Structure formats: structure tokens, C-alpha cells
């Protein structure tokens, strides 16, 4: 049934990594992976590509390329990374020992180990003068025996500070589903008469347009009630997004939750 394939070709240099990450993130999200699964794909792809760039291409890859192909099928998401450096099977490297004491510890070698542990399946082949590494994440990981069940209610942590201020901590990117949840939680508190609310953004590394619209609409609601919704601890990614659309002039933004709490009276 309708396989869906996406491809990107980039130069074999470290500067390409952000583009590769964006590409894999978009594809993994389209495949329906949850935030944890997407994060694992980002990490595994970075580890493999970094090895190719630093070792395969020996940091001289300006005119060499890396191909990343993402394939979305019904039951699995596959990432294949191809390079034309010398034949090298990273899966043959001996695993580092997590029990090793500090003095005997190799500082490197963990990247491939993470790839093997974070992905559901990893395979290597050398074909047509190229290395091909294929990594798989099975979809519907909630059914896998060792994967934690995704509880949608746990994607936002709500805390009440000693002074009574309520802090909302989204645990991942403000995608559509998380945004909707956050909106409901914020509106519930506003309707209960809590007019000053803090959103701690420290774990939010991406903000969708739905997320932005939602923040603005609840903020307007709070302002209409003579209250406020303030943001704390923006990640550099989210700060960029917010600045681009000019919302940094609208929202009050604090570097810490403590500062936000001091400035607002519950």
C-alpha cells in the first residue's frame, strides 16, 4: 500500500546537519511517530552522519555527498543513509561498556551504540560503491512490549508554585495535539478565575502555527480579563520563531520561572 519516499542530498560537512535534522523530523512526523520516536530518529541520524563526515570523509567532504532517504510505510518508518567513502560497517565496531569505570572509559564510540539501542532495527550493506545504513522505527510503538505507553495527558505538566502561581510545562514540541491540550488547560484555569498563568517553554523545541495561534488566542482572553499569560525559558529555536512573527513584542518573556513568578501576582 502507498509507500511514501522522501529524499535529501547534502554536502558531506557538519554544516549540513541542521538541514538533515529538519528533513528527518518532518518525515518522521508525517509518518506519525510520537515526539520520543522523532527524537530518537534525529539522534540516530546525527550520529551516523557525523561518523561519515568526520571519519569517512575525514572532514574533507565539501564536494562529496550524503543521501538520506526516508520511507513511510504502514507499519514502519525507515531512514537510509548513503555515502561513497571507503567501505565501513559501523555495526561491526565493538560496543563500548556502560559499566566501565571512568579511568578505563573510551570517550568516543557511543554514537553507534545509541543508534543500535534507540532504533528498532539497523542494517548495513555495501553496494554500487556506496555504504548504505538503514535504520527502522516500527510505528505504533505503544504496542511494543518495552516502550512506555504514551499517555496524552502527561504531555503537559502542571505545577502550582508556593506563591500560588500556576505553571504549565509542555514536555515536547507544541504540535497540534499538544497545543490543543495546553489551550484547554489554560482556558480551564482562566475560567476558574486564575488570571495570571506561566508557560515554561524549556522543553519546547518547535512551535507549530497551531501552537502560535493558540498562544495568542488564550493570551488575548487573559488580557481581556485584565490578566496575563507569560512565557518563561524559551529555547533558542522557539525564540527565533517567536521573533520572526513579532510575538516577542506581545508576550512578556522571562529567563526563569522564578522571575516570572516574582513579577506576577496570583
Amino acid at each position: 500500500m502507498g509507500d511514501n519516499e522522501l529524499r535529501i542530498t547534502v554536502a558531506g560537512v557538519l554544516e549540513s546537519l541542521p538541514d538533515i535534522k529538519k528533513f528527518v523530523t518532518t518525515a518522521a512526523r508525517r509518518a506519525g511517530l510520537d515526539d520520543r520516536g522523532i527524537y530518537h530518529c534525529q539522534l540516530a541520524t546525527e550520529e551516523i552522519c557525523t561518523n561519515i563526515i568526520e571519519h569517512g570523509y575525514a572532514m574533507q567532504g565539501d564536494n562529496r555527498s550524503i543521501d538520506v532517504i526516508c520511507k513511510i510505510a504502514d507499519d514502519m518508518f525507515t531512514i537510509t543513509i548513503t555515502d561513497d567513502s571507503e567501505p565501513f560497517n559501523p555495526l561491526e565496531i565493538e560496543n563500548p561498556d556502560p559499566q566501565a569505570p571512568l579511568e578505563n572509559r573510551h570517550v568516543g564510540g557511543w554514537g553507534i551504540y545509541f543508534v543500535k539501542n534507540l532504533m528498532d532495527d539497523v542494517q548495513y550493506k555495501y553496494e554500487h560503491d556506496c555504504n548504505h545504513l538503514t535504520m527502522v522505527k516500527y510505528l505504533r510503538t505503544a504496542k511494543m512490549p518495552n516502550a512506555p505507553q504514551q499517555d496524552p495527558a502527561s504531555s503537559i505538566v502542571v505545577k502550582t508554585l508556593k506563591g500560588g502561581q500556576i505553571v504549565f510545562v509542555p514536555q515536547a514540541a507544541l504540535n497540534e495535539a499538544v497545543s490543543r491540550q495546553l489551550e484547554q488547560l489554560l482556558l480551564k484555569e482562566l475560567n476558574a478565575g486564575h488570571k495570571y498563568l506561566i508557560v515554561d517553554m524549556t522543553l519546547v523545541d518547535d512551535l507549530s502555527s497551531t501552537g502560535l495561534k493558540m498562544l495568542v488566542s488564550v493570551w488575548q482572553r487573559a488580557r481581556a480579563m485584565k490578566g496575563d499569560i507569560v512565557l518563561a525559558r524559551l529555547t533558542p529555536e522557539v525564540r527565533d520563531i517567536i521573533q520572526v512573527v513579532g510575538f516577542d513584542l506581545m508576550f512578556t518573556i522571562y529567563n526563569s520561572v522564578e522571575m516570572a513568578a516574582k513579577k506576577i501576582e496570583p
Partner: protein
Amino acid sequence: MIEVNVAQQGQVAVITVVGRVDSNTASEFDASLTGVIDKGTTQIVVDLSAVNYMSSAGLRVLVSALQKVQRVSGDVRLVQPTERVQEIIEMSGMDTIFQIFSTQVAATNSYTN
């Protein structure tokens, strides 16, 4: 994208990292840690509470800093890794070689107690 801030609190250097520690940004993190160690500080706290992504490049920086300062009886102590970073810390057994605290204050005070 990464931001690294260093604050000296008495004998202890507190390094706060914000953002991603990956193959592109690890060198900046490494430069801050190495800078602190080269100035002779051996008691170091690294606050990871605002790090939403860390690859093996970041672990390498932490482990090599720990190896350097433990030779001179110093230590690198970590503060509140996020769930995502905690996962790879445990996977690599780093939780057995690093002391991990839930607040910056607790980590800083642990050097004087």
C-alpha cells in the same frame, strides 16, 4: 543552537547550558568547560535542565572533562537532565560515574558539605 553561561560561585564554576548539544555545538560547550578547567577550577557544576537534545558529541565533552578534573581530585556534577538527556545518560552508564542533583543549589553546596 546553544547558549553556554559560566558563573563562578566561590570555588565552584556553574555552567548553564541552554539548547542543543550536538556535533555542531559540542565544540562551544567544550570550549567553556576547558576554559574553566584551564583557569584551575576543578569543582564544576553543569546545569542540563534546559538541554533538550544531547548526542554522543555532548557526552564526550562531559566525560573528557570529568577525566581531566578527577586526576586533580576535582569533579563535574550534573543538574537535572531532561527526560531525553537522562535516557542516553543511563544508556551509556554515565549515571554511575557522574553525581546528579535535582537543583543547581544542591549541586553547588555538595562541594562544601
